[in-house]
Structure formats: structure tokens, C-alpha cells
């Protein structure tokens, strides 16, 4: 491998050619991995806000204005139901890679706040929980950092017209946990909604008895659609996957077209390189190097340059993301994943397709190589 016919010496002595391939592959890897990053972050956000909460509870929202008390009573009376909690789902604005995004804020009765937080896997890390019926809020640490908020700051549409969440809430606590959801008082939030003056509940969170989630959801799904809408984990997961499948399908087709065009271009370039090197391969065949050996040599060269380029592309991507994360995104409170499986999976077709295309053409050339036609040529 490291001899006079090894690929390291070839690449070293033909730096111009190697570099041309390297630059193109590196740029392609960086482009594709950036697309992968942006879409990955989009899907991650979508999952966090639209799917993740429903692993803990099922949401029941009035189709019209209020959930009929009879329905609420029958749900609460089901043996599978552990607790039916009045809850208003709201969102707070955050900055994301692809622009403004949201994180959940749940408004629940103060008496159940601690219980609710424990159920959704969150905990208070600094400050205190919102007091009963007071416009206070506890926000996750990541949201605080993202929005550059501090304890005591005010959030809500009344202080910031760009905010999603109505009203005006004082931040009194910071939460930790994976769901990144905030919590506030049900009574306070209700007073800011359009239904403030009307008695009744517009939405509930239904918690199931241990092991009874499926049964509870099955029952909830039978509720009359004209009165309530039910958001179960299964349905939300399915809806998410449908969205994701469309997006991923679109992405993969764009990706494959990019990679395909690139592979053909690089394959043609490689083909040209090998055409120019048929003298070299011809003389080697003439003096007795077997086709198998020559093929292995060509394959090693191609695989080496493509895998080196791919690794360099990923390496540069990591470096670039590090710089961007530190100087551009960190000040906006956005964290940037350095490199994940998605980048690998999306960019891997680049070296693979280039290699396959090149190897196919090289294979054709080498199997048809007649050393005599090379040594007979006079120049």
C-alpha cells in the first residue's frame, strides 16, 4: 500500500488532481450536511413541541369553545383515567436556526403544578414555581438562555407584541428537563384568554392509570368529534411521521439529484484521469501485473481519495459549525449540534456514488485494456 504503486504516493505526487476532487467533494459534503442540519433542527423542534408532550398525557380540546361538562365527567369517571386536569396549552417564542420557533408552556392549576412537572419529567432548578392565580411563570433553562431572560423579567404579548403567549407574566423560576416546557398558573392564563368571562373549561390534559394509556386513548377516541378534539400520542406521532416522511422524501430526492450530478461529473473527471493513465496501467499489465492487481490498485486510489475528501468535508463541517456556533449562534441562544448521524447518512452517498460511478468506468477501461495496444503506440 505504501510502495511505489500505492495510493499515498500517487495522491502525493498528483496533488493537483487529488485537490480538484477533494475541493468538490468537501464543498458538496458541507452543503449537504448544512441542509441536513437545518432540516434536522426543524424536525427536532417539531417533534419537541408537537409530539413529545403527548407521551405523558392526552389532550382534550373543545371543538367549539368549551368542553361539555358531561364529557369531562364521563372521562374522569373512566377507570383508566388517573386524572383529568384543566390545562391551557400555550407557546413561547424562541430563536431557532431557521427563524422564530416555539416551546410549550402549560398552564395548570397551581395545586397540581408539582405533580404535573414530575409527570412530564421536569423539575425546578432555580427560583420557585408560579403562585396561585398570579401572572407568574417558570421557564426552562434553555428558553431563558435562548431569549436572554433573567428571573424577574416579564414575558407575554403585553410586553412584547412578537410574543405568542397572551398576557404578561413575571419569571419566577427556571426549570430543567428534556421537554423544555414552561409552566404557569391556569387561573392566571385563563384570565388572559377570550373565554375569561365564561365559566367552564376549554381544554384538559388526561393522565392515564399506569399501564392504561392505550385503553384510555381508545375510549377518548370515541368521544364525539363535533364536541371535542382529542390529541393522543399515537395520532400525533403518526401525523408527525407523515409530515417528516414528506419532508425527508423531498430532501432525499434533492440530495440524490445533487449527489447524482456530482457523481457523474466526478466520475467523468476520474474517467478522464484514468484515460490519461492507460499508458501507466498498460505498461504494468505488459510487464506482468495481473488485472486483479491493477483493479485493486485503481480501486484503492479511488476509494482513498473519496473517503479522504468525505472525511475532510465532515471535518471542515465540524470546524465551521464550531465557529458559527460560537460566534454567530451562541449570542442568539441557539445551540448547534456539531455532527450527528443525520450528517453521516445524508453525506455518505456522495463518496459512495462517486466511487461506484468511477469504479464502474475504470473497471470497463481496465478489463478492456490491451497492453500491446499501449506499447505499440508510437509518439
Amino acid at each position, binding site marked *: 500500500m505504501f510502495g*511505489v504503486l500505492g495510493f499515498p504516493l500517487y495522491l502525493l505526487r498528483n496533488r493537483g488532481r487529488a485537490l480538484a476532487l477533494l475541493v468538490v467533494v468537501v464543498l458538496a459534503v458541507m452543503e449537504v450536511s448544512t441542509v441536513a442540519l437545518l432540516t434536522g433542527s426543524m424536525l427536532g423542534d417539531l417533534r419537541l413541541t408537537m409530539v413529545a408532550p403527548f407521551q405523558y398525557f392526552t389532550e382534550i380540546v373543545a371543538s367549539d369553545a368549551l368542553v361539555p361538562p358531561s364529557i369531562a365527567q364521563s372521562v374522569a369517571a373512566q377507570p383508566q383515567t388517573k386524572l383529568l386536569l384543566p390545562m391551557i396549552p400555550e407557546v413561547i417564542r424562541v430563536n431557532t436556526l431557521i427563524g422564530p420557533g416555539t416551546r410549550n408552556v402549560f398552564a395548570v392549576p397551581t395545586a397540581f403544578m408539582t405533580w404535573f412537572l414530575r409527570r412530564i419529567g421536569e423539575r425546578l432548578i432555580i427560583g420557585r414555581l408560579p403562585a396561585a392565580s398570579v401572572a407568574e411563570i417558570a421557564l426552562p433553562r434553555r428558553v431563558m438562555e435562548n431569549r436572554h431572560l433573567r428571573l424577574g423579567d416579564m414575558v407575554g404579548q403585553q410586553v412584547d407584541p412578537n410574543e405568542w403567549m397572551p398576557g404578561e407574566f413575571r419569571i419566577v423560576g427556571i426549570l430543567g428537563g428534556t421537554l423544555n416546557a414552561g409552566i404557569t398558573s391556569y387561573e392566571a392564563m385563563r384570565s388572559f384568554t377570550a373565554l375569561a368571562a365564561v365559566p367552564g373549561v376549554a381544554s384538559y390534559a388526561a393522565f392515564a392509570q399506569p399501564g392504561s394509556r392505550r385503553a384510555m386513548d381508545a375510549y377518548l377516541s370515541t368521544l364525539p368529534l363535533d364536541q371535542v378534539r382529542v390529541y393522543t400520542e399515537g395520532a400525533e406521532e403518526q401525523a408527525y411521521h407523515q409530515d417528516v416522511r414528506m419532508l425527508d422524501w423531498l430532501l432525499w430526492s434533492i440530495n440524490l439529484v445533487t449527489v447524482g450530478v456530482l457523481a457523474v461529473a466526478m466520475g467523468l473527471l476520474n474517467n478522464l484521469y484514468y484515460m490519461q493513465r492507460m499508458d501507466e496501467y498498460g505498461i*504494468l499489465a505488459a*510487464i*506482468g501485473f495481473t*488485472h486483479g492487481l491493477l483493479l485493486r490498485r485503481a480501486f484503492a486510489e479511488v476509494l482513498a481519495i473519496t473517503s479522504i475528501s468525505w472525511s475532510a468535508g465532515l471535518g471542515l463541517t465540524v470546524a465551521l459549525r464550531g465557529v458559527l456556533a460560537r460566534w454567530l449562534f451562541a449570542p442568539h441562544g441557539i445551540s448547534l449540534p456539531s455532527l450527528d448521524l443525520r450528517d453521516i447518512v445524508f453525506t455518505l452517498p456522495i463518496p459512495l456514488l462517486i466511487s461506484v460511478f468511477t469504479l464502474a468506468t475504470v473497471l470497463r477501461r481496465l478489463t478492456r485494456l490491451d497492453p*500491446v495496444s499501449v*506499447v505499440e*503506440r*508510437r*509518439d
Partner: protein
Amino acid sequence: MPREGRAVPDATASSGVHGSGTQPETGAGRVPVLGRPGAERGAVGGAAEVAGRARRGGLGRRAESLAAAESGPVEVVAHRVGLAYREHGGVCHALRDVGLGLRGPGFVGIAGPSGSGKSSLLYLLAGLKRPTTGRIVALGREMDQLSPTERCLLRRRYFGFVFQQPFLIHFLTAAENVVVGAPRRDRAARGMAEALLGRLGLAGCCGRLPHELSGGQRQRVAAARALMNEPRILFADEPTAALDRASAEELMGLLHDYRHGHGALLAVVSHDETVTAAADAIVRMWDGRIRAIERPG
């Protein structure tokens, strides 16, 4: 001694070569004659020479197995071979019914006008091409029965090649190009290559790339590459055609030194009479046939 069935003792043949082609006396059914049956540069002597080198480790294990399998002399035989090329609709007969046996050690010249089939004959003998008709036996092996890979390995182990153009690998230095010809491209081969280049007066050129060398220097590097596997048969096709007189003499001197030193067979295609003048036998080609075999001296 020549083995049964492949050699026909011929009292009239008295050198390392005998051929058949258009000659009426070599009629159909007659096995082409293999050289002379013994005497001065004896067949047994040739084999012993190779075996001796093998025992000293010069050729390594491969040569030992060869020496065991081959008690005869270095040889390659063409049995009534023909070579036809398909050419825009028609067929071009580069060789017709040529019979020839080469026995080593020695020096055989192949001469003839351009297009007479000299190169074609050399390619067939060396296993670079397969005959359309007839068969080739090289070093006791029926070429037809060898796989393409085995034919490659035969060339790599026992044959050396010098062509009209040096065909050096452009990005490798002179020494590295020579190493390409070695059976194992290791540190020892590197030392051997440098020593060889030193003996060719190219000691200062080891690290130079081909484009930094003159034509004569390049051809000497190519010759050095051909010697790295210590070939039993050295095939050269117009090796001096692109060289000036001095370079040509230098190159031929080098090839002769090698064949003397190693008891090898040197087969050279050339239309330069000064190159073939020293040959033990000259095969004269004409229109795809052997017109005559001359034995100068």
C-alpha cells in the same frame, strides 16, 4: 536435454534457434525444430546456471520450483502459430504458420522490414498476445492452458521487457520506476534499483522524474526496470529505435552484460543491423513468415 515430443534433434541445426515458416522443407505435420541438440552452449548448462542462481537465492523460491520443474534450458517454442487481425471488414495476417524455438542462454535477433510481423512474433512468444492458430510453449508451459492471470505471473516472474518507448510512470522517480519491476517492491528492491542505476551511470538520477531525464537515460531506466526480476528471457522490441548511436550502444551493452551474467536469453527485434550483428542467430521475417534463420559468425 530437450524433452521428448517437443524437440527433434536436427543434425543440420547448429545454433540456438530453428524456425519454420514458408520453407518447403518444414511441411505440415512436422514439429518445429528446437535449436541444436547439445554441444558448446549446452542445454543442461543453461538450466544448471538458473538452478545455481536459485540456490544462491538470487531468484528466490519461485526459481527453485522452476529449476525443479525445468531441468531443460531456457526456452520458448512457437508451434505453427498464426496471428490474424480483423481490419475494417477484412482480415490482416500478421503471422502465418510460424514455427520457432528459442533456446538459451544466448542472443537472438529478429529482423525484417516494417510490418513483417516481428513485433507480433515477439508478443506471441512473450505471452502478450494469443495466437489465432497454433500454440506457444514457454518455459515448459502450454500458454493456451494458462489463465490470463497465470500468463501475467509468468511474464512477471521470468520475462523482462524493453519496448521502443520507455513507458516510465511519470510521477515516479527513476529509482521508483525501476522498483516497479521488482517481484517485491520493498526496501531491498529499492537498494537493488539504486545499485542497478549506479551501474548504468545513472547514480545521480535516482531521484529525478522521467521528464527530467534524456531519452537515452529514460530508456536505460526502462531497461533497469526490466532486469529487476532477474528474467530468464529478456524481450526487447526495437529498444534502440528512438536512441542515438551512443545511447543505443550503451543500452545494448547493458542488456548483453545482463544475459552474460545471468545466463539469460535475449530476444531483440530490431531493423538495425548493428544491434543484431552480435546475435547467435538472426530470424529474418518477411510478410508474416520466417524467411531465413542466419547464424552470423
